[in-house]
């Protein structure tokens, strides 16, 4: 049953979406914990779609390599932008 993988993945993705939304609507969690959980759920959903829906099989090593490279390249950009948030003042460093 080739369809089993995508169907299970789909069910988990929807369950995670329901979890994310209800956690936010109910607002029972500590905000920081919730942000972490919501993001973690999104990454899990994205991985499931990547593995089971885009391929319907496992990725070839080349495609995997390209994907990992693409994600790696973004990390420095995120870091650099975050380190540039110093409004309104850049304080000179002193020891």
């Amino acid at each position, binding site marked *: 049953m080739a369809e089993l993988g995508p169907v299970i993945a789909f069910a988990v993705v929807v369950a995670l979406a329901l979890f994310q939304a209800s956690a936010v609507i109910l607002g029972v969690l500590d905000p920081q914990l919730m942000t972490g959980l919501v993001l973690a759920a999104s990454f899990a*959903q994205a991985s499931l779609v990547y593995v089971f*829906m885009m391929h319907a099989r496992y990725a070839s090593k080349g495609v995997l390599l390209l*994907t990992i490279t693409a994600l790696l390249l973004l990390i420095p950009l995120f870091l650099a932008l975050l380190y540039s948030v110093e409004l309104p003042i850049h304080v000179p460093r002193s020891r």
Partner: protein
Amino acid sequence: MSHGGNEHVGGPNPLISWLFTTNHKNVGVLYLVTSLYFLVVAGVLALTFRLQLSEPNNVILGPDAYNRAMTLHGLFMLLWVTTPLGAALANYFVPIQIGAKDMAFPRLNALSYWLYLSSGIVALSSFFAPGGTADWGWYTYQPLASLRYSPQIGGSMMAFALLLLLASTTVGTVNFIVTIFRLRAPGMKILNLPLFSLGWLATNLILLWAFPAFMAPLILLVTDRLLGTVFYTSAEGGPLLWAHLFWFFGHPEVYILLIPGLMAVGDIIAVSGRRAVYAKPAVWVALLVASFQSWVVWAHHMFQSGIHTGLREAFNITTELISIPFAVIVIAFLLTLVGGRIRITTPMLFALGSLALFIIGGASGVFNSSVALNIGLHGTFWVVGHFHYTIVGGGITGLVAAIYYFWPKMTGRLFSETLGKIHFVVHMVGFNLLYFPMHMLFDMPRRVYTYVVEAWGPVNMVITIGAFTFAAAWALFFAILFHSLARGSKAPDDPWDAAPYSLEWNIPSPPPEFNFPHGIPSLSPTGKISWITTNGASPSEHSHPHLSPWPFIVSVGTSLIGVGLFMSPPMTVLGLAAFVAAIVGWAYDDLKDRFKVVIEAIGEKWPFERDNNFSLGMWTLVIGEVALVGPIFSGYVFARANSLLTGFRWPAPGEVHPIELGLLNTIILTTSGLTATLAYLASKKGERGRTVLSLTATLALGLAFLGIKAFEWWELHAHGITFGTDIASSFYYVLTGIHASHLLAGVLVLPYLILKAHKGGYDGGKAPGIEMFAIYWGFVDIVWLFIFPSFYLL
């Protein structure tokens, strides 16, 4: 110019065959002619402002004209000249060097070219738009380039032209990556490729992410200018958002310009010295390391912008380190010559010259990488001198060497060696007279139309004299090429005695349409070339289906849209009609299976043995798009982090965007992802009914998603939340807009897929359309899975 492969008997007339060609060699020639034409345009612009700068307080060009000329010079030389010049030679020679009959997607190859030409036409037309073209310098700093400070319509036109160019290059990149990875001849492992092809592969791996990464800030700029979003005018986004996103593309771009020329130089050196490249694996590793490093050096362009000290120090180190792989490459090239028998030919002279200039450019680059020295050098003529040494010296001079080297093969004609050597001398004298003195002006600001400091005068005069000498070298170059075409003696197949080194010297000059008249090339582990003969099937019988009018008509359409959008609305309508007609015609050809691609089943495909050309093409495209969406998301994070400091209150979850609707759309879209996947699986099994059903479900769900999205936008507008309300609404509209337009594109393709599936076109997985669609649709799903939490939940 020779017609390369077009010399088949009884073919259509030459004009039609040039306009509708899909043959990689013809496309290469088109690229070459066009990029050299743009080189002349951008070069003449440079001469006008060099004339203006020859003396202090000169009045030949006013500040307006100067700024436009300088901006166009920069944009054209980088994006419309150097990158495509590499693409020209790569189009012609990479398929031959890897042992392929053509590119993986010949029509897309033609499309890349025609979109490139169309983008160039729109960009040049912007010069004549009321108020003139972009005048903000090629790196388009904000907020100078915002509507408030630069309202001219030509600026928006230039931004549109850039988007077209990026689309063209992205299509080309996908094509080259699939071609180089999957169309190699038997025995042609990656490392066995000649350096030029190897370099072009590295270049394309950079291009794959660099150009989409440029599209990200550019889209934000276009929406700022046309729709009134506030990415670059608000305190939360602002100038630094542009600077980061732009240079994130901008620095990798530098290596895109350099590598093709540098690697061609390596081949020429090996051939002239009759020696295999020294430590070729190390050269390849160095190239890969440099390609990756090119992504972590960009902030050295922003050393003076007051970003975090630790961040600057980190980029200081990464920038210095990137000179190490290039040092390895340069030294490997020199060691290649040890023990050789060096013949000093024109290409070899240019190759050595290019290497020498690149060494100087590399050395001056180390100065700029120092956070402390950068304080004195940033924004001065020193920097102008430095990057011209690397790009014009390392990149373009290397490509001149490559044009000389490949010329006899492309045209079947020899050029005059004597004139070539004279050209070399004029080129080097002009170059050094032009760019070396710039280093002495390390106190003079760049991009000023004039200057008052008298002491800068004499050096500037020398530079201007150098500029005209260098221009004369180019005139001589073109004269030599025309002379060779008109009077040159017939070239042998192997003028450089390079047959053992690379495939192109084993076939006729110019090569026949499908490159290899002796059979399929194959390479033994000891480097011997042999030919696998095909039984009777003459490649020329594929000739006629190899013309396709649609890429050309797409280009006519986009040019008309591009110019019309800003200057005359009726033209836009006409362009849109041509565009739609071309797409429909293309799809119809496909449905009727009219266009056959000639691809050998055997050959090297590592590491993509398990994919097919089409699925790999789609994978490459969507993985490239990560670099379009990723930077916009990182911009969103930046703006949100900034808003904590500027006091802007980001809307709380549920406050503006109803969580329930977002959740509903998430479920709808995920379901459509599932149905798309099921359609693919059903089509592979040959279950036609289920395929059609699943595709129809996908279409319905896609439309439902778009409907809900439209409703949300409508509601927001009704509540007065528009593109420009604040930074949060800007990001929401643009990110969901980009996502929705991707979805719309998929929805528009679906009826075609359903029709073809209904006719049995995908039974048993015989065509890749649905697989490609499933990959694309999955990517669109993933993007939404991040948009949903970003705007609805957090």
